[in-house]
């Protein structure tokens, strides 16, 4: 595997990259590929190592081990100023002694682009981020949202192959953030540049990305499309981190049958050892409240919150597991209720299964069908 020539359509590739500062290991043997022209999100809690990956791509930090490829070239030793990558910084990092146009023009001036062309490209870039006519504004006279746009314009004006965005929306208020998510997604499609977006906000990641890499503890926990990751989380961390989940222990009796609380349920998972201990994930929106007679599980309603579109209910079952349920059906606190779900709502996770093993297992039993 080591030193394998990367595939051409991958604009970027990490091969067994590790990073440590003194004794503090930040990244542990990370490998992944970035396909050209897609919107990637590195998602993880703070301290997970996601920003370190970004710094390695930008060239602000150097890998302790492993290889980083860009367009098929190993770039471990290429300094930041000679990489075809531009960054939108978390604090925007706009030059305070320059106005908007000067900030945006900086990269082009450094490259020695002709003045007339600089003027044209700065104008286009400001137009793309909807800041037409702001050329001569001082940075200090711009709002947070406007600064964000200047930072994006300053990066994309250089036409990088990869645009890095470090927690780029986290300083904005909620409404502006949602608006910028849509705009960023549009901008990415329009420009066809590969975006690598770092965030700790799972909603943001699900909303914007073609591909998500979930990082925790210096490792990639899972990678895939937002739908894949939401529907088929690989492990406890991912299931818990992405969206809301009920995660309970279970036993895989045989293919397509899992036991929860000593009761057997049909499911759509297979390929485990008989009677293997597993974890079972069921999303709150896949559970519903019903009568005790019709319920697959039975419990007592502990809390109920009205949230506009639905009720957020918690039910304690007979084995003392707490179930989170999002239902349009109203119930009463203290009431005995049944919980229903369908076989395809159950997702079974094995302990310590790698992404490769997971994919192989999935292939094996889907082929068998």
């Amino acid at each position, binding site marked *: 595997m080591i030193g394998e020539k990367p595939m051409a359509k991958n604009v970027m590739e990490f091969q067994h990259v590790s990073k440590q500062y003194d004794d503090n290991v930040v990244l542990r043997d990370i490998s992944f590929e970035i396909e050209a022209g897609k919107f990637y999100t590195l998602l993880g809690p703070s301290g997970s190592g996601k920003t370190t990956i970004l710094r390695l791509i*930008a*060239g*602000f930090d150097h890998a302790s081990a492993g290889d980083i490829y860009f367009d098929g070239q190993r770039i471990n030793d290429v*300094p*930041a*100023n*000679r990489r075809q*990558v*531009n*960054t939108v*910084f*978390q*604090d925007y*990092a*706009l*030059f*305070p*002694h*320059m*106005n908007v146009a*000067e900030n945006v023009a*900086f*990269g082009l001036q*450094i*490259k020695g682009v002709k003045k007339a062309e600089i003027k044209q490209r700065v104008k286009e870039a400001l137009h793309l981020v909807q800041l037409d006519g702001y050329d001569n504004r*001082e940075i200090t006279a711009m709002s947070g949202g406007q600064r964000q746009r200047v930072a994006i314009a*300053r*990066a994309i004006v*250089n036409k990088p192959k990869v645009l890095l965005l470090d927690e780029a929306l986290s300083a904005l208020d909620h409404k502006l953030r949602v608006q910028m998510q849509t705009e960023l997604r549009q901008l990415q499609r329009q420009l066809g540049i590969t975006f690598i977006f770092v965030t700790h906000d799972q909603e943001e990641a699900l909303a914007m990305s073609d591909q998500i890499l979930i990082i925790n503890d210096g490792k990639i926990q899972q990678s895939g499309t937002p739908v894949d990751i939401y529907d088929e989380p690989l492990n406890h961390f991912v299931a818990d981190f992405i969206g809301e989940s009920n995660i309970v222990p279970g036993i895989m009796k045989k293919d397509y049958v899992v036991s929860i609380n000593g009761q057997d349920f049909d499911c759509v998972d297979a390929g485990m050892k008989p009677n293997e201990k597993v974890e079972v994930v069921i999303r709150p929106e896949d559970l519903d409240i019903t009568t005790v007679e019709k319920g697959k599980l039975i419990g007592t309603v502990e809390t109920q919150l009205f949230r506009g579109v639905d009720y957020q209910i918690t039910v304690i079952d007979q084995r003392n597991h707490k179930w989170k349920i999002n239902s349009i059906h109203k119930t009463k606190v203290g009431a005995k209720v049944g919980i229903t779900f369908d076989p395809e709502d159950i997702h079974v996770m094995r302990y310590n299964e790698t992404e490769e093993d997971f994919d192989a297992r999935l292939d094996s039993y889907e082929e068998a069908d």
Partner: protein
Amino acid sequence: MRQKAMFIVPYALWIVLFVIAPLVLILYQSFFNINGQLTLNNYAEYLTSAVYLKMTLNSVWYAFLITLVTLIISYPTAYILNKLPNKQFWLLLVILPTWINLLLKTYAFIGLFSRTGTINEFLQFVGLGSHQLLFTDASFMFVAAYIEIPFMVLPIFNNLAEINPSLINASYDLGATHWQTFRRIIWPLSMPGVKAGIQAVFIPSLSLFMITRLIGGNRVITLGTAIEEHFLTTQNWGMGSTIGVVLIIAMFIIMFVTGEGKRKGGQH
């Protein structure tokens, strides 16, 4: 509100007694001649006399040279200090000499530079012979710069430390080399520190008198020397005050020139 006003009283009193009153007294004194008669002659003499003109030019020229030498030494020092792991400790070492009395430091240099001093002894020992070091322009500049360096390093150091490191990363990210980053980002953003340093060095250098006498051997007569002479030797307080007023005006001009002007960005 009343309570807040109370807090201002000691500061206002201080400023009136020790800043405004002396300035007014100097201004008042400058309109009297040596016999105590009200006159404008002091100013007339200052503005028409070749001696005073030369003295003024000398003062400005040497203050300029001292400031320049100090800046050339201090900027790289502050820059490197900022990159060191224990930068506060190293900064302390740079500032340490300011805790020692100026006169003591000056005498120490006499000991080092004199005909029988440490440096000449060393030069003789290695066979280069004894040289006249004291009472030269070079030794005067050296000692003046030595004394002023901490006052230049400190504001520049503080200013450089305040520059957001992500601005420097942003510059590299946009393709700039180390030198381009320095010239277009670090240097312009450190200008407030440089200006503060220039103010802290140039203005006191205009009125140096002890070093000009003890190290420079009074070969260079600056305005500071002249004030000292008029007050202590010739007892012509009026003329001394007039030169004082000129210095104060010069200081305001420097403050104005190096002060916080409108931001000047980019290289256009």
